């Protein structure tokens, strides 16, 4: 069963990644390019590939050469879109667990990007590194991307910081979409490394229990990634203190992102992903 329903996929095709700066790209796409000033100047032709927007087929050239060709415009080059999904063990926590909605969000971003003519590579970060897919191109490979994501399971320790660092160290600009709960002490460094030269977006996924825990009695909380234990007594005072820390954490993440030009969106694991994309993320300008 695919991560996303056909109806939702169809609705996603009306969306595009929102980018705020000009980007360097290589293939036909819908993003503005810093190299070219106009979005309507003809640049080149290239052969049609499955998944390309058939509306851009140059009918006359294709009729003459008996093959399908795509018309490229200077201002509409694609960008590499890297979607980093936090695959650590903490993403398996929550009721419902955060992993499945995170996978659906990542798949939705991938679909939006592929429909927009961008190429997409997926990363699943854990244990100080990441597992990455091949580059997907064209709408037709959207299901391949979803299938790749669907096979990932949460396990291991934190890894998004190192995954983002290694992507940025490649030195290539592009869009990075990070889908993570950011529940690790190095979250600030992660956000800092997401900052330009490339575009970046953060989808912060938390479970309802993490946002509003309902605990009773004395507990030993065990960190599923590090095994660290913390004994707490779930008194109203303690819960109130937790909520204060959580609010400060969420505010801190949002502030760190926005101050660096990173688009930020918060998602709960029990949110409807379609609703998120069609309303919340548009409002947050994650997509347009």
């Amino acid at each position: 069963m695919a991560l996303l329903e056909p109806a939702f996929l169809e609705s996603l095709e009306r969306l595009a990644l929102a980018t705020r700066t000009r980007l360097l790209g290589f293939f036909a796409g819908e993003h503005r390019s810093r190299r070219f000033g106009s979005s309507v100047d003809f640049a080149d032709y290239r052969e049609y590939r499955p998944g390309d927007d058939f509306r851009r087929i140059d009918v006359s050239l294709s009729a003459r050469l008996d093959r399908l060709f795509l018309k490229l415009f200077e201002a509409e080059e694609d960008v590499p879109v890297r979607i980093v999904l936090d695959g650590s063990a903490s993403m398996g926590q929550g009721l419902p667990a955060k992993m499945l909605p995170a996978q659906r969000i990542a798949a939705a971003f991938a679909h939006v990007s592929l429909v927009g003519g961008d190429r997409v590579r997926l990363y699943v970060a854990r244990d100080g590194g990441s597992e990455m897919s091949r580059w997907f191109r064209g709408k037709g490979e959207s299901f391949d991307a979803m299938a790749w994501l669907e096979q990932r399971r949460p396990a291991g320790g934190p890894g998004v910081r190192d995954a983002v660092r290694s992507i940025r160290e490649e030195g290539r600009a592009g869009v990075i979409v990070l889908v993570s709960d950011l529940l690790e002490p190095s979250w600030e460094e992660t956000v800092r490394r997401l900052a330009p030269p490339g575009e970046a977006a953060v989808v912060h996924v938390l479970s309802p229990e993490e946002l509003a825990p309902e605990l009773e009695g004395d507990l030993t909380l065990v960190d599923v990634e590090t095994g660290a234990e913390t004994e707490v007594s779930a008194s109203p005072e303690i819960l109130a203190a937790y909520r204060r820390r959580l609010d400060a954490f969420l505010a801190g993440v949002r502030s760190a992102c926005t101050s660096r030009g990173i688009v930020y969106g918060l998602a709960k694991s029990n949110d409807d992903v379609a609703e998120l994309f069609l309303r919340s993320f548009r409002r947050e300008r994650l997509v347009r």
Partner: protein
Amino acid sequence: MTFIAPFALGLAALAAPIVILYMLRSRRARRPVSSTMLWDVGRRSVSANAPWQPLRFSWLLLLQLLALALVVLAVARPARPTAVPLGDHTVLIIDTSASMQADDGGRNRLESAKRQALKSVGQLSPGKRMSVVEAGPRARVVLSGSTDRRAIVEAISSLRPTDGPTDAGGAFALGSSLETPDTPTVLHFYSDGGVRPEDRDAPGSLVHIPIGSPAGNVAIGRLSVAPKGAGWDVFVRIVNAGSARVDAALVLEVDGGEVARESVRLDPQGARDTTMSISRTGGGRLTARLENVRAAPGTVGDARTALVNGLAVDDTASATLDRGSGLRVLLMTPGNVFLESLLRSIPGSEVSVGEAVAPARGFTLAIYDRVTPPDTLEAPSLVIAASKAPGLTVTGSVEKPVVDFLQPREPIVEQVDLSRLAIRIAKRIRTEVLRPIVAAGDDPMLAVGVPGGRRMAYLAFDLRESNLPVQVAFPLLLGNLVSWLTRGEGPDRAALVAGNSLPLRVPGRATSFSVELPGGFKVERPAGRAVFDETDRAGFYRVRYLLGKASLGEETFAVNVPGSETSLSPRPVTGKLEGRDRPGLRLSGLRAWGPGFLAAALVVLLAEWWLAHGRPGAGQLRRRTSPAAPGLERNRRPREEALP
């Protein structure tokens, strides 16, 4: 039912701390969360002011208490009485003779005996004692009256097989000596029964635990040498104690080099005497060895598949080629070329021959062949067909006597085949002093004794009136007789068997002597102790006499496996459980059930672990069974229940 270790029931008191710990136990549930970084907000325990929690029903507590109960039972070893005759004091006598090295279904008989003995140890009731006695060539007490099971097991495990006979009589005497008047004692004898006939009737309160199953065996029963010119004649007797016809190769080696080889075929329960000549002027170490022992072609039925050679150690025999025995013989005979030539063939012998009686003082041996000896013997004497001799009366003659009796286990006729002996006429004698060794009906044909303090043997027939001189048995019998007659206090040098003391001739100046054992290991002993009896292994023992570090000379002894170990057919030893009705004699053992309880305890512990850790929905069961005690949920909740 009773308990072997009842004191272990005290361990049941551990249930109290388990319950107390359960009541005192911090009811802090363990909850997996994505991260603890937001939870460092306070640690005040809401239940710190209520350390005692009411005890509520818990499957986990129940399983833990059940596991403890099973462990306690396993340690306390509940047991039921069995019919094993164990006394308040049980003496385990274990046969370590050469025959116990025989194959017994993949292990040797001694290992089987030790296993059986260890089983008895396992059935020992608390407070009861056990002793361990080794019945080897020299019986010895290995462990005396111990209640320590570990010490008993170690004592049994320490026993090693020997190449010697079983001193069962000595072992029984030792075992009986360990009995005290107030402690009823039972002797357990673990043996294949290869004991001397006089030891078969064991003392009271003895139980024979038979070891081993019947098996065939081929052995070199006798090896002796005699100089012949510049070389040597080697007499070998090969015995087949099995039920199959057997083929084998007999190999002679001198100092490790093969000098002769001969194929032999042996009938079931048969023996073969063979003489082989080797041309070697000097001395050396002679080894005779059987190789490639197998059932002969054409053997059918059970005999073909039966084990034909169950004991390997007696496939080899050894002898020293030594010409210097220093034997001075006075032969008085009207004429006997067989006897004279045979005596002259004895290595280093000096034979003086005369027709009439002569003073025998100063001779090692006097032989009166058809010559009447003096009433008082002056030397060890062999009297042949004389009409008068000390210690006996000649009452007549007997024609064509048929030998039908050989004294069993008698070294003089050991491995001597007289089945084809034919005698035309013999003296009929009556004697109360001499002991018949060979007899035809009531008429002794050969009798030995010590009349007047001198060893004497009387042969009732003229050698010329029999076919004995032309049989292989003749040199063997005469050799045995000479050995017995001329033996000092020590054993015969030419017929040493494992367990015998070496007849050392320690020079007066020697301060010590060293012995190189068959395995190459060397031991040194002070000269004052001129006895060396650590001869449990067959082979060559090289003795060097020392004055400080200087050598005063050396000699080599050949030690062989005794012929009594050849037969591998288990034989019963008649034990009488004397005093079965004696008050206080406990004739029952205990069979413990311990291992089963341990296994059950392990299963219960696994169930407890599974309930606590592994079973999906275990938390639901715990909550259902202990709704007010969330603290009992010490483990990870299932994933669908996970809370931050």
